[in-house]
């Protein structure tokens, strides 16, 4: 169904626009995001995002802590993917201090980051469907699978959500015995679940009706507005930092980057599904290649595991970025040679992806605005840091 913009009736009638305030407490704003909406009937004519309701001063707190002590705080940035956040921060600091990562640790990192991606995408789709009005069913299925992966995380890192597992130069502890087999079992079951999930959603006519040609985002705008991750790829640009920077050991894996054609909500949904399948491929390769033993933290960084206070990177700056499930997650760190960073900044993909929210929503119905917001995939912890 093409979205014909109805000719406004305003010329004939004396009509008024309706200003409504969506959020900070609203079921569809994914937390405490607020949208200042002006509606003409039910059509959005103006939308101003208001944020800061979860501004937890992450940067200020991090500038007052040792480098390692910020690690658990990065977990709480984008609280769906603590591992990816850890990854980004660890990369930035490793660049700053010039630390190499041993091979086994790199494999562990990649495995966990990809598992996180699956967790994130599956939950995002669940939430998107919730915004579409499906009564929690897809979300429950998604969370059921998420629980299974979180069990693995808990076994590895000790916590379901806030893993705090990466360390500069490696990871905190080695994997518990038998874990790789359990990941393998999970991976064998997961595609079947994904098929079922897709049967529930992908061809569903109502879903197609609601999502196709809604919130179309063109390539040029997407690029110019600094979008990244599945948003950018759904708009037709196959830009994936895992491929471009080949950070960590991503260069060793054979995987593809799915690209959408239209850049609408449906593409954003489906690109995520495809990305999950690609992640499974990476996982499969990583599980086969991972060395069975070896260091899990570099020699240079190992002493700081016990005494984070002594970790003093040389004066300088570093920008580390990873392909987090939301997009390009960057950490900019300036060191002054003391145990605390002088400046610590997070380039939050969720925040920057919101730049285009108004452009996407204008001319659509109120109901679509929620769906578009859902498809952008924001997490308020990261938006507001």
């Amino acid at each position, binding site marked *: 169904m093409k979205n014909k913009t109805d000719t406004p009736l305003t010329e004939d009638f004396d009509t008024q626009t309706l200003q409504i305030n969506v959020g900070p*407490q609203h079921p569809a704003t994914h937390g405490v995001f607020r949208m200042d909406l002006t509606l003409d009937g039910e059509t959005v004519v103006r939308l101003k995002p208001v944020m800061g309701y979860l501004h*937890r001063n992450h940067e200020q*707190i991090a500038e007052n802590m040792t480098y390692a002590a910020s690690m*658990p705080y990065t977990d709480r940035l984008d609280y769906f993917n603590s591992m990816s956040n850890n990854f980004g921060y660890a990369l930035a600091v490793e660049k700053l201090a010039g630390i190499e990562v041993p091979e086994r640790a790199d494999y562990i990192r990649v495995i966990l980051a990809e598992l996180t991606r699956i967790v994130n995408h599956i939950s995002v789709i669940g939430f998107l469907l919730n915004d579409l009005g499906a009564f*929690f069913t897809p979300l429950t299925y998604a969370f059921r699978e998420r629980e299974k992966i979180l069990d693995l995380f808990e076994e590895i890192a000790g916590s379901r959500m806030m893993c705090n597992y990466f360390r500069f130069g490696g990871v905190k502890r080695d994997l518990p015995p038998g874990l790789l087999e359990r990941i393998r079992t999970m991976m064998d079951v997961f595609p079947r679940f994904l098929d079922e999930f897709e049967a529930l959603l992908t061809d569903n006519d109502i879903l197609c009706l609601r999502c196709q040609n809604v919130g179309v985002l063109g390539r040029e705008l997407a690029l110019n507005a600094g979008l990244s991750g599945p948003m950018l790829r759904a708009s037709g640009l196959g830009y994936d930092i895992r491929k471009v920077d080949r950070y960590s050991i991503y260069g060793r894996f054979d995987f593809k980057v799915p690209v959408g054609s239209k850049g609408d909500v449906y593409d954003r949904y489906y690109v995520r599904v495809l990305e999950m399948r690609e992640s499974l491929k990476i996982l499969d390769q990583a599980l086969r290649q991972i060395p069975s033993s070896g260091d899990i933290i570099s020699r240079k960084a190992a002493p700081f595991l016990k005494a984070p206070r002594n970790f003093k990177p040389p004066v300088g700056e570093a920008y580390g970025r990873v392909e987090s499930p939301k997009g390009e997650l960057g950490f900019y760190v*300036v060191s002054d*040679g003391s145990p605390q960073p002088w400046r610590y900044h997070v380039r939050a993909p969720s925040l920057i992806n919101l730049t285009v929210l108004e452009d996407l929503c204008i001319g659509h119905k109120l109901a679509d605005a929620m769906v578009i917001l859902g498809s952008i995939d924001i997490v308020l912890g990261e938006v507001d840091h």
Partner: protein
Amino acid sequence: MAKKESRLGVILAHAPNVSAIDEGLKSELSKKGVVVTTLNHLYNWGRSSSIWPMQFGLACCAIEMIATACARYDMARFGAELFRASPRQSDLMIVAGTVTKKMAPQVVRLYNQMPEPKYCITMGACAIAGGPFIDGYNVLRGIDRYIPVDVHLPGCPPRPEALLHGLMQLQKKIESQEIEKTAWYQKGLKREYPVPEFGPRGLIPKFNPEVWQPRAKDNRKERYGEPILIGKKIKAPDLDAETLRRASGGPAK
């Protein structure tokens, strides 16, 4: 039986105003008051097995809250899965996540909008006291500064089981209440909490002294002051000098 029924009538008529029931009558009732006890029991049972939370998440803990409502933990077993989007229809506010100063007025307002009897659970360290973000300039150190909290649930974030445990604690608390003594049926009781305003550096007021008082002795504060060091570092890194040093290959500082 007829006599008891008339007693019941008396109690119901006076229930909103406890002071109307004098002590003597009360003790008499407790001797004979099968009906009262049953009524009490029924009232508490009804309330405790049908707690509808507000669909209201703030941060990380909200995800665990959703996980609690999902298949593995299934809050529905306690009759508490109907997350209502409108505060008017909810009984329980689970403050799940960091309450920032910008958000606090809204949280208080939402609490005010809920109908009595209403309960509040603070889920996670942030909602209790600011948690790990306690030193932030925009972080409210505990929502109990403005509204009364029934159950505090520590953890960062608490496991879903812990939330269920918190819910059971709340049920226990509800079951220990008595219909004649419950706060919301008493006259002249302030149950609408004033909403704080934004000031130049934080909220005005910083807390509501009728609800919350600062700790008499705060070890953390005494020991560490406010461990925020901005302003303490007095020397900025000289990136230009570092560039020159690197270019010339000089020794690191």
